[in-house]
């Protein structure tokens, strides 16, 4: 689910808040937004009523201001107060995501539902085979009691009419590691001891109930101050606007950033170091090595497949190397990473050289709020361009390509690609750790398609991938 009303609502709010902050009206106007969007007697609400819609706008705004909805202790605290607190905040903190409980519709309590295809047959294999006696007959059709159902699925297998269907809970279904589950009220909760920050739940929830805690307020505050703010752009940026890379760079500068640095320069370093490491590991008899550039993947290894840890490359991520370079050049500047990724927020909090992270979506909102027309910007000259190799990273298979080219002649390089983390591919990784890896180099991308398909992108991933590939031909 890329383009949907929840995504558009979030972008609309990001633009509204950014605009208010640029115009110095954030605190005075923020409490009016929800009422302006849903005035009295308007029928534009898709929820039960305008009051619920307004409440959810309030919570979405809280998330954009960078707060956890879970921390709310005074329901009467106005957004202006939160805005004040956001502007006074020195740094961003864990956690990275937040669940808007008011928006969570606490989807189906049991994953199995009997449809009206049920004939109320004589054999009744669903009832006979249900281990929890959760099925009873009502008006000639079977019914599952969600309080008793344990989601084993035997009834679905047993029904000859295929009258029982599986209804997923989208956020739980999308989570590769089972980190999001219902609490006793049926509302979703994220278990941060399991969460890998992949961001899949944020885009799969059809109610838009899971949001990132944005740092856009913090970044705009710095842009408005007299500090130097440096943008480190992920290589996927080239496909995110309908304009050339040089114009995008120029637009970022126009937004107030003092310099724009390609994270792909860090990826160039990662590629060289990782290639050397690969050669050494294989020479020392290691069966295989996996990439380490995707932070959601390395988090998944740490928390869910620790037996794989010794096979993960010890080479640092592109962000690590580029942050070091930027910090050397600009000692007192504010470093902002701009990318498609939720997990990078976690990586940045742990990296002493990084200050903030914006998604491409937030960058787009910033442009709109400032009235910057990317297509009409000048072509900036890129003073310190990255190499082809580093710019390949954001499309699945790109890292493999980069390592292969750096290796030069094919010395037994046998790559395998895990394109997207899912419950299934996490299981596959477990088998690799046990010796079932079919190659000696494994590229793992949490997002199917690579970073160009990350949760924070603006463009259709297919179009974006073509643009990345054109630049690295």
């Amino acid at each position: 689910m890329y383009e949907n009303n929840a995504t558009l609502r979030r972008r609309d709010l990001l633009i509204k808040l950014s605009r208010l902050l640029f115009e110095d009206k954030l605190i005075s106007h923020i409490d009016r937004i929800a009422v302006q969007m849903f005035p009295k007697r308007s029928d534009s609400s898709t929820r039960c009523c305008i009051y619920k819609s307004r409440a959810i706008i309030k919570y979405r705004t809280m998330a954009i201001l960078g707060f956890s909805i879970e921390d709310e202790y005074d329901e009467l605290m106005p957004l202006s107060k939160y805005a004040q607190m956001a502007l006074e905040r020195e740094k961003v903190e864990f956690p990275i995501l937040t669940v808007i409980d008011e928006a969570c519709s606490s989807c189906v309590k049991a994953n199995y539902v009997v449809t009206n295809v049920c004939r109320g047959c004589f054999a009744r294999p669903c009832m006979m085979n249900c281990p929890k006696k959760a099925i009873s007959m009502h008006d000639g059709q079977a019914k599952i009691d969600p309080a008793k159902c344990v989601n084993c699925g035997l009834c679905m297998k047993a029904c000859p009419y295929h009258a029982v269907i599986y209804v997923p809970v989208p956020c739980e279904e999308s989570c590769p590691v089972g980190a999001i589950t219902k609490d006793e009220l049926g509302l979703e909760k994220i278990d941060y001891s399991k969460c890998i920050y992949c961001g899949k739940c944020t885009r799969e929830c059809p109610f838009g109930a899971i949001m990132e805690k944005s740092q856009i307020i913090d970044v705009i505050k710095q842009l408005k101050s007299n500090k130097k703010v440096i943008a480190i752009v992920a290589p996927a940026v080239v496909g995110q606007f309908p304009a050339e890379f040089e114009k995008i760079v120029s637009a970022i500068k126009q937004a107030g950033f003092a310099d724009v640095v390609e994270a792909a320069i860090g990826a160039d370093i990662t590629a060289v170091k990782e290639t050397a490491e690969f050669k050494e590991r294989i020479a020392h008899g290691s069966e295989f090595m996996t990439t380490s550039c995707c932070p959601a993947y390395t988090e998944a290894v740490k928390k869910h497949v620790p037996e794989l840890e010794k096979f993960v490359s010890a080479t640092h991520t592109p962000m690590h190397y580029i942050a070091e370079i930027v910090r050397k050049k600009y000692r007192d500047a504010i470093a902002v990473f701009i990318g498609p990724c939720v997990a990078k927020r976690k990586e940045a909090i742990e990296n002493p050289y990084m200050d903030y992270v914006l998604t491409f979506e937030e960058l787009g909102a910033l442009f709109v709020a400032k009235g910057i027309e990317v297509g009409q910007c000048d072509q900036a000259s890129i003073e310190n361009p990255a190499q082809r190799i580093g710019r390949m990273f954001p499309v699945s298979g790109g890292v493999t390509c980069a390592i292969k080219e750096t290796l030069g002649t094919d010395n037994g390089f046998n790559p395998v690609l895990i394109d997207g983390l899912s419950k299934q591919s996490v299981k596959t990784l477990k088998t690799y750790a046990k010796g079932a890896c079919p190659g000696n180099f494994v590229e793992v991308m949490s997002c199917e398609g690579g970073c160009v398909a990350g949760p924070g992108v603006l463009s259709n991933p297919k179009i974006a991938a073509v643009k990345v590939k054109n630049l690295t031909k």
Partner: protein
Amino acid sequence: MKKITIKICTGTACYVLGGANILMLEDYIPGEIKDIVGIEGSACLELCKQSQYGKPPFVVVNEKVITEATVPKILDYLNKLTGKDL
């Protein structure tokens, strides 16, 4: 049949607020009218600066401005225009 020109605004506001996906419109145009439909991306049409047109993203089909455009909304209008049930 007369030619139909579809102009998709690729200004930043339109692009961010949903226009990015409308650029895939060509894939959804039914084969039977493909020959008479011309799709072009356009630099900012400045419709976002005039409040009477409503909200982005904007698409202009011949002379008609479609606001808060989506692929299905455009296809609907093409139905009306061609008098066909595509």
